[in-house]
């Protein structure tokens, strides 16, 4: 690349970098931005809105179940609510919110200026948003998915479900799967290629191990859901016989495909959250994580083992004992890596000097709930016990301990921890205590009694129940707990709103954290790092006090100010290999996502021309996107510390 001497004196480096990396102003910039920080924040806000929607659906159900024989909801409405509650929480909240954190924090954590594929990142967000709207537009026609979030065949086949309900489900999840898949590819390639020089794999924060593992899981699990949904759509619209016994198909094919996807998915929505806790705890315990290598290995092995346990969702379907026993054993084995992580966290607290912040409280609450949810999980891994409890509220209790405990509590902790990095302002610690204790007490009050109502035989997904079965008081307590939990979430929202207006200034490193993101200002400038750092240890900001002799260099290094550029490094040792030129603002991602939306609405309404126009536009947009706009370049001089 030719280095032309500037005619006027060069402006200060920071101004020059801002001009290079800034998103264009106005509406165009809002629609065309590829800044990972903007996209990350959009992911966080959008998935939080879906959390609130799913939460409202849950509260309406808890009003209905507060006492016996209530008629707030019709059975049909109840079916739609619990189905959309599950779909929303599993697909539109739990995974996307973690993608939001990863999108925002990853490049900062690894000393890069953006993700590997900035435009793909934008596409991933737009598809997430549009497929969420697609799924929720089903309420407008009063035909929301109504066969549960795992939608067992053959209740989903056309004769038993003639409306559009399950078409929204099958197409909506296929659509959303594109977002999840391209997002996963982006995360993997980012970690393989964009880490700062010196950040070898043994120096990665555990959060990155978590999202990297789940991104691989997405690559190998998501196609099972896509296949299941496409086959369902073909059955419903084209009269094929995949799930239809009369035509030679089988409903269990759905269950296999769904749970081959579904169980890895459970780990996909918790492993990054566990990683966030593994990175937050050391900051608050004032010491490095105990047994880093074991926690990293536990993360990866959980992801792998997660593919070998799906049949434990199908113990009650009459599969042969050899099969159920195998999967029962595998399900018990998977507790070992989870236990490794739990003991590492406890040891980190034990050997540290914990600073009790709100974020720390949420991390501690997370560990407690993880253990309770883990115990009820091992219990249901035993086949005879599972037979007794399948489709009861015990399973509902388990899934919520696991998902709210390991996902939501970690996410709230991460909000208290990293939101100041994004907004530049701290959240209030006093309100934070109220926030934590209402959520923690409300959660346990709401969900612990479900174990008992399940043991007493209350089936899940009933829209009402009779009095005199011993369930009445338990359900009332559950409903009270659910509303208390909601008050806690409200306290979080108030805290965020107040913080945005007049929160205390955070400064670059309010918690004295040890990873690279805390070396940037809060909020970080569009270019993240003025120079690309050189990493020499696992704790670049704690090297002085740890006295391990390593010296990371953060204030000197390659400047790369000839355009949008960052360093490409080798996958294992992170040795500099190339200068990567990054794309700037682009409308192609949004146009491509809109084309796909047209395609999916066309398929939904059997509107042939719309599907064809959408499909053709998808092809045109892809070609336009891939057509190169930059001149080929050769080499560039890079300054780095020796």
């Amino acid at each position, binding site marked *: 690349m030719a280095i032309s001497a500037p005619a006027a004196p060069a402006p200060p480096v920071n101004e020059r970098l801002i001009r290079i990396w800034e998103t264009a102003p106005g509406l165009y910039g809002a629609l065309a931005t590829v800044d990972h920080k903007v996209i990350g924040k959009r992911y966080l806000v959008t998935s939080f809105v879906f959390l609130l929607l799913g939460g409202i659906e849950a509260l309406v159900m808890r009003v209905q179940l507060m006492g016996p024989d209530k008629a707030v909801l019709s059975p049909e409405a109840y079916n739609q609510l619990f189905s959309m509650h599950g779909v929303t929480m599993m697909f539109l909240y739990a995974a996307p919110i973690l993608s939001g954190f990863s999108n925002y924090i990853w490049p900062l954590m690894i000393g890069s200026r953006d993700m590997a594929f900035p435009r793909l990142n934008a596409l991933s967000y737009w598809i997430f948003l549009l497929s969420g709207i697609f799924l929720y537009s089903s309420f407008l026609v009063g035909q929301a998915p109504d066969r549960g979030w795992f939608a067992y065949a053959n209740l989903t086949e056309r004769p038993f479900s003639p409306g559009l309900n399950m078409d929204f489900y099958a197409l909506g999840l296929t659509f959303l799967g594109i977002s999840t898949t391209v997002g996963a590819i982006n995360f993997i390639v980012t970690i393989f*290629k964009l880490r700062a020089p010196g950040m070898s794999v043994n120096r990665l924060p555990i959060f990155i191990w978590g999202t990297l593992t789940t991104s691989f899981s997405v*690559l190998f699990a998501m*196609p099972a859901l896509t*296949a299941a949904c496409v086959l369902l759509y073909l059955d419903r619209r084209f009269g094929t016989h995949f799930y239809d016994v009369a035509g030679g198909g089988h409903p269990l094919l759905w269950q296999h495909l769904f749970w081959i996807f579904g169980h890895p998915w459970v780990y996909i929505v918790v492993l990054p959250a566990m990683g966030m806790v593994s990175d937050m705890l050391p900051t608050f315990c004032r010491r490095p994580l105990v047994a880093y290598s074991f926690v990293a290995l536990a993360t990866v092995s959980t992801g792998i083992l997660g593919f070998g346990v799906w049949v434990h969702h199908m113990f009650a379907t009459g599969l042969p004992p050899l099969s159920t026993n195998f999967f029962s054993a595998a399900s018990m084995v998977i507790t070992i890596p989870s236990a490794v992580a739990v003991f590492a966290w406890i040891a980190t607290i034990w050997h540290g000097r914990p600073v009790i912040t709100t974020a720390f409280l949420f991390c501690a609450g997370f560990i407690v709930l993880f253990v309770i949810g883990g115990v009820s999980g091992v219990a249901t891994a035993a086949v005879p016990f599972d037979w007794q409890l399948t489709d009861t509220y015990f399973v509902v209790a388990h899934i919520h301990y696991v998902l709210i405990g390991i996902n939501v509590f970690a996410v709230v902790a991460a909000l208290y921890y990293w939101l100041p990095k994004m907004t530049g302002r701290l959240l209030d610690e006093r309100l934070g205590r109220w926030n934590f204790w209402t959520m923690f007490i409300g959660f346990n009050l709401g969900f612990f009694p479900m174990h008992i109502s399940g043991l007493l035989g209350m089936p899940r997904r009933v829209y009402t129940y009779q009095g005199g079965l011993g369930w009445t008081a338990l359900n009332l307590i559950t409903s009270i707990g659910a509303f208390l939990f909601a008050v806690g979430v409200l306290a979080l929202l108030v805290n965020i709103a107040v913080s945005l207006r007049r929160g205390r200034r955070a400064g670059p490193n309010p918690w004295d954290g040890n990873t690279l993101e805390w070396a940037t200002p809060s909020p970080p400038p569009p270019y993240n790092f003025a120079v690309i750092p050189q990493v020499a240890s696992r704790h670049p900001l704690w090297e002085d006090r740890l006295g391990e002799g390593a010296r990371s260099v953060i204030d000197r290094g390659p400047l790369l100010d000839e355009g949008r550029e960052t360093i*490409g490094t080798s996958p294992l040792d992170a040795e500099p290999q*190339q*200068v*990567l030129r990054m794309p700037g603002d682009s409308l192609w991602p949004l146009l491509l996502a809109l084309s796909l939306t047209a395609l999916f609405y066309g398929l939904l309404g059997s509107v042939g021309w719309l599907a064809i126009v959408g499909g053709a536009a998808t092809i045109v947009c892809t070609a336009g996107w891939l057509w190169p706009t930059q001149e080929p370049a050769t080499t560039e001089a890079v300054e780095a*510390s020796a």
Partner: protein
Amino acid sequence: MTAATTTYRLPVDGYGKRTTGWWGMVMLIATEATLFAYLLFSYFYLMSLTRGPWPRSGNPSLGLTLPNTILLLVSSGTMWWAESGIRRGGQGRLRAGLLVTFLLGVIFLVIQSVEYRHLRFLPQTDAYGSLFYTITGFHGAHVAVGLLMNLVIQARAWVGHFTAERHLAVTNTAWYWHFVDIVWLAVFTSLYLSPRFL
């Protein structure tokens, strides 16, 4: 800058197998290959649950499909020939190789649609028919995507975008095309050969 600073030169964008675009294609192929694995899993799963002959309409004929399979394998060879050409800067070889590959791909799809006309069952006939058309249809769609990629690359080859060092888009298209061919071998083995000895 202090004395502890060195200056070295790095290639801009990089090329070949070291750059982000190539890794992206590898990951895409991994997830797409998994999709076919699940479709073939569905095929064998439903086969294992079926009593009586599978397929009921008799084993699918190899008359058209065996030559078609060979044709697709040859197209992988021509794609390889095109890519190895541009690696040495051979623009003519790249353009010719892409064109021949494109034509072979089109012929493959034409022959497959001819075969569809001769089949004695429809997707709606039974689960076997549903599986047969869906799996071969998915594969056909992937061939079509490969052809579209080929078209874009051909246009770029005629504009003269590619050099001996810079031809990542060609490499990616070639890898995708080889993937589509290898998947066909799995589909062919499962749908056409396995009923003959399972």
